[in-house]
């Protein structure tokens, strides 16, 4: 096993003395019903090897046919990433031997990808926009799934044998390859993370994939190299494979920068190799060294004819593209009148969809933001869950706010109502009734409490009568306390002053 305790240079020091360059390959599994080259189901979670055909098993004589929907999705992705869509392109065989590739080659695209030369703007958490150039996006197929049995950790090392399930073999993939990402400097890890996140959001908006990271629908290979300065030639890169969460992408880049800096500081050369990321330690370890043994002997796939998307078809797809996440954010910010910083906080908190739904349910944008970014964000943080997991719906928040707006509850009561909803006591309406939380608007009941408070604090009454309105708060406070906060404070004040001065 390769060492996990490699020498590391302190990150800040590493990026002060070296300029990192990234290259990121993102694979996305398309959400088509069937596989790329055959009609086997492409859904997730079926019993092993129940979703195969002779094509996805690589049986001799089986002939592939391209899934037209997958081509459409690939074009959608290409257009959303501002790519050129090839007038004609073809598939190629990438030959290698591994049990999860039953044909002994992966059907991919090589010299003729379907989309090329694009870009995407990536927004960092502080609002900085970083443009990432896209070299290409090509179509290919996923491999089967290996389970390693007998090793201590379930990883390959120490495994006695492997079990292979080909349900995933042949599921359509689009691989998106960036050009070298330069100029990110110390923010390289953040840029890498934001890039992958941006793509994930775009895939979802395009409805080409469920894009669930935890299911491996989106996987990233991260290339990192260092050079002494931005005008020096590119350094030797490593490729950290299959980094499958946003956080891991950030950590893997950060780790590689610190590790490579240590290698270079020691006067050694970075080895061009693939590396594995370890979730538990946040480190990478050496995988296989790239050598000329890794010759994929690409050649054009003779069993598939070229794909030549007509310009009419491409324009049709372009015209039907949905609103993309960045445009949507700009539109909603305009509609809601949020300041830049407010909008960023909302986006970073993952509250955008929730607030949109709350506004749609009738709440004002300001009120929706107040609830989700205030009370509910605190609740989520305390419970260590995401905002989406909080047990309240946007419609319930809108109802809660409408109760406040109608004067039936005040802010303090609203928080108690919220507690009730979160505790599963029903809609805000029901909680108000069940807990008896409505504002006391009956003057009779209030006056009794007011009189009681006045009688208890004759000195205050004297002062107020003498023209000093300052201490009146003490009386109001007492009334609020006596009514358990269910009084309308403004009305209480009116009644108190009437009583004293009247």
């Amino acid at each position, binding site marked *: 096993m390769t060492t996990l305790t490699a020498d590391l240079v302190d990150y800040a020091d590493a990026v002060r003395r070296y300029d990192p360059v990234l290259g990121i390959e993102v694979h996305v599994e398309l959400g088509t019903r*069937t596989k790329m080259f055959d009609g*086997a189901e492409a859904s997730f979670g079926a019993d092993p090897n129940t979703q195969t055909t002779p094509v996805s098993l690589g049986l001799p004589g089986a002939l592939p046919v391209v899934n037209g929907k997958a081509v459409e999705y690939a074009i959608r992705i290409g257009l959303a990433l501002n790519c050129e869509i090839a007038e004609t392109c073809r598939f190629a065989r990438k030959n290698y031997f591994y049990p999860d590739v039953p044909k002994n080659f992966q059907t991919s695209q090589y010299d003729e990808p379907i989309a090329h030369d694009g870009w995407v703007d990536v927004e960092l958490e502080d609002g900085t926009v970083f443009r990432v150039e896209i070299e290409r996006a090509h179509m290919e197929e996923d491999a089967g799934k290996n389970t390693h049995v007998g090793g201590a950790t379930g990883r390959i090392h120490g495994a006695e044998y492997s079990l292979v399930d080909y349900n995933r073999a042949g599921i359509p993939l689009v691989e998106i390859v960036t050009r070298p990402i330069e100029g990110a400097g110390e923010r390289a890890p953040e840029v890498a993370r934001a890039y992958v996140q941006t793509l994930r959001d775009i895939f979802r908006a395009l409805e080409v994939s469920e894009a669930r990271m935890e299911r491996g629908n989106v996987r990233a290979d991260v290339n990192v190299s260092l050079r002494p300065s931005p005008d020096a030639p590119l350094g030797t890169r490593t490729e950290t494979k299959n980094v499958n969460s946003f956080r891991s992408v950030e950590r893997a880049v950060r780790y590689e920068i610190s590790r490579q800096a240590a290698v270079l500081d020691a006067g050694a050369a970075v080895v061009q190799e693939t590396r594995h990321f370890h979730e538990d330690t946040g480190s990478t370890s050496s995988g296989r060294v790239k050598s000329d043994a890794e010759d994929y002997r690409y050649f054009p796939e003779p069993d598939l004819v070229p794909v030549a998307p007509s310009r009419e078809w491409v324009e049709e797809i372009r015209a039907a593209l949905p609103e993309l996440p960045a445009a949507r954010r700009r539109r909603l910010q305009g509609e809601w009148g949020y300041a830049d910083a407010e909008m960023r906080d909302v986006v970073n908190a993952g509250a955008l969809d929730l607030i949109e739904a709350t506004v749609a349910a009738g709440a004002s944008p300001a009120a929706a933001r107040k609830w989700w970014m205030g009370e509910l964000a605190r609740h989520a943080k305390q419970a260590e869950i995401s905002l989406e997991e909080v047990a309240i719906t946007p419609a319930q928040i809108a109802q809660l706010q409408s109760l406040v707006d109608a004067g039936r509850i005040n802010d303090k009561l609203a928080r108690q109502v919220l507690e009730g909803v979160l505790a599963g006591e029903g809609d805000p309406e029901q909680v108000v009734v069940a807990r008896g939380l409505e504002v006391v608007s009956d003057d009779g009941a209030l006056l009794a409490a007011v009189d009681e408070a006045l009688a208890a604090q004759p000195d205050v009454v004297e002062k107020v009568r003498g023209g000093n309105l300052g201490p009146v708060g003490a009386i109001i406070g007492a009334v609020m306390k006596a009514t358990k906060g269910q009084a309308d404070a403004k009305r209480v004040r009116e009644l108190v002053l009437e009583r004293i001065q009247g």
Partner: protein
Amino acid sequence: MSTISRDEVARVAALARIDLRPDEVDRLAGELDVIVDAIARVSEVATPDVPATSHPLPMTNVFREDVPVPGLPVDDVMAGAPASEDGRFLVPQILGEE
């Protein structure tokens, strides 16, 4: 003019996981040479403006509808497997890596 060396044959054979004896390597180097020479003759005739042909048929965009077909029964899938476990193919320990 010999263009295919013994080493090259051995390398390509290794890449393709074909186990060749030394005498087979020698024989194939000669035979492949003949093929490469023949192709070279074609290249002499084909001017640069003739595009390389990967598909002899003038066809494009042969697509399938995205409609599922029933999967093969698992018993059929496993029929050719030398070994299996829990409906999955059992393969020897993998020495490479993912």
